[in-house]
């Protein structure tokens, strides 16, 4: 049975924990709004881009001279997994879910006899994958210093990935990130970025277009940009998801702390009452003995 003083100390400590989690929740809520806005602002570009690319890809795709970024290298031996995670923890299952998906994919590929290479973006994913897949790491991108993710960050990552592709280091690239659905649900997603897979929509409208310069040149110019665009929207979705996950995790933590305080307070009151009762019994029995 803990003493009254112990209980009091515990209540105090849980109270200050609650203050911290509450503050973190509010900060996450404010950041979430900004991240969500950024994700929404970025959407028109990504959507238009893939619409045009889908049209182009459909008309050039069958061509033998089509760029490798679209058709692939003809082999599927080496896979690059680009794992986007957060730089910070305390956001529920956000980082673990992405890492888990990547781990499953890596295990499945290895079981098929393929080679897996991993490029991590964000410290947390690296930490979580380090135990089993440290040998597969080919690089890491640190975004700790960056407050607001810009397109330039995505371009840097894309440049790195494309340089590796040009050097023949891998055949397939898959992007892992968490899609933001709403505050309580984020969907870990694996998206193939190389060779480019555009959602096949009806390309009838695109067929009328006149291309300047030719279709192949435009495609060759746009495909690398497409990789950057996809990475950028992955980063934006991830940013919103991270804050959403943190917000709900901290909301839960705040609520748990409240429950804990209630429970401890009841225990505290009970033991105080027990002490008082004990003292009374002592006094009364002392008086009776006289």
């Amino acid at each position: 049975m803990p003493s009254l003083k112990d209980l009091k100390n515990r209540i105090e400590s849980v109270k200050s924990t609650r203050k911290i989690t509450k503050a973190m929740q509010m900060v996450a809520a404010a950041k979430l709004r900004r991240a969500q806005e950024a994700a929404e602002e970025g959407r028109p570009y990504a959507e238009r881009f893939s619409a045009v690319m889908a049209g182009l890809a459909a008309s050039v795709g069958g061509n033998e001279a089509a760029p490798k970024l679209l058709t692939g290298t003809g082999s599927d031996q080496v896979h690059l997994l680009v794992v986007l995670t957060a730089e910070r923890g305390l956001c529920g299952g956000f980082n673990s879910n992405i890492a888990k998906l990547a781990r499953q994919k890596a295990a499945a590929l290895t079981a098929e006899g393929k080679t897996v290479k991993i490029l991590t973006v964000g410290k947390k994913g690296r930490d979580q994958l380090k135990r089993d897949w440290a040998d597969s790491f080919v690089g890491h991108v640190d975004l700790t210093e960056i407050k607001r993710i810009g397109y330039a960050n995505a371009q840097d990552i894309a440049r790195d990935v494309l340089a590796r592709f040009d050097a023949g280091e891998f055949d397939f690239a898959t992007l892992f990130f968490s899609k933001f659905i709403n505050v309580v649900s984020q969907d870990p997603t694996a998206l193939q970025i190389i060779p480019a897979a555009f959602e096949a929509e009806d390309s009838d409208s695109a067929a009328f277009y006149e291309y300047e310069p030719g279709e192949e040149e435009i495609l060759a110019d746009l495909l690398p940009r497409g990789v950057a665009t996809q990475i950028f929207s992955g980063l934006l979705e991830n940013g919103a998801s991270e804050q959403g996950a943190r917000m709900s995790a901290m909301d839960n933590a705040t609520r748990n702390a409240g429950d804990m305080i209630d429970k401890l307070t009841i225990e505290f009151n009970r033991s105080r009452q027990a002490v008082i009762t004990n003292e009374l019994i002592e006094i009364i029995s002392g008086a009776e003995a006289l």
Partner: protein
Amino acid sequence: MADTMQFDLVSPERRLASMQVASVSIPGSEGDMTAMPDHMPMITTLRPGVLRIEGASGTEEYVVSGGFAEINATSASVLAEKAVPRGEVTREFLDALRQEAEAAHEAAEDTKKDLTAKTLADLAHLAETMV
């Protein structure tokens, strides 16, 4: 024939403009072109240059770099990797673009060398007209 068409200018980070316009001058990689309503549907890549929009509220100018434009009879959309209103263009911005282009030119191999050289020249021209 309609007098105006829908025009959108979007960069990866945000939508810069969305309005009804009478005409748009686009710095295409094969030469400048002006799109007006009922233009033939076409897609062109961009070179670094000035995009001029003639709208109801007067003329607006943006400096754009990288990306493409999609034009059809009722609308024109420009998807530019970098787009900045002309008034906000600074020497630093142009210098940054130029450094990037120079790095790309250094790294480029034989066939791409011409393209990157052209980008550099476009940038130099842009820098001159800006001053």
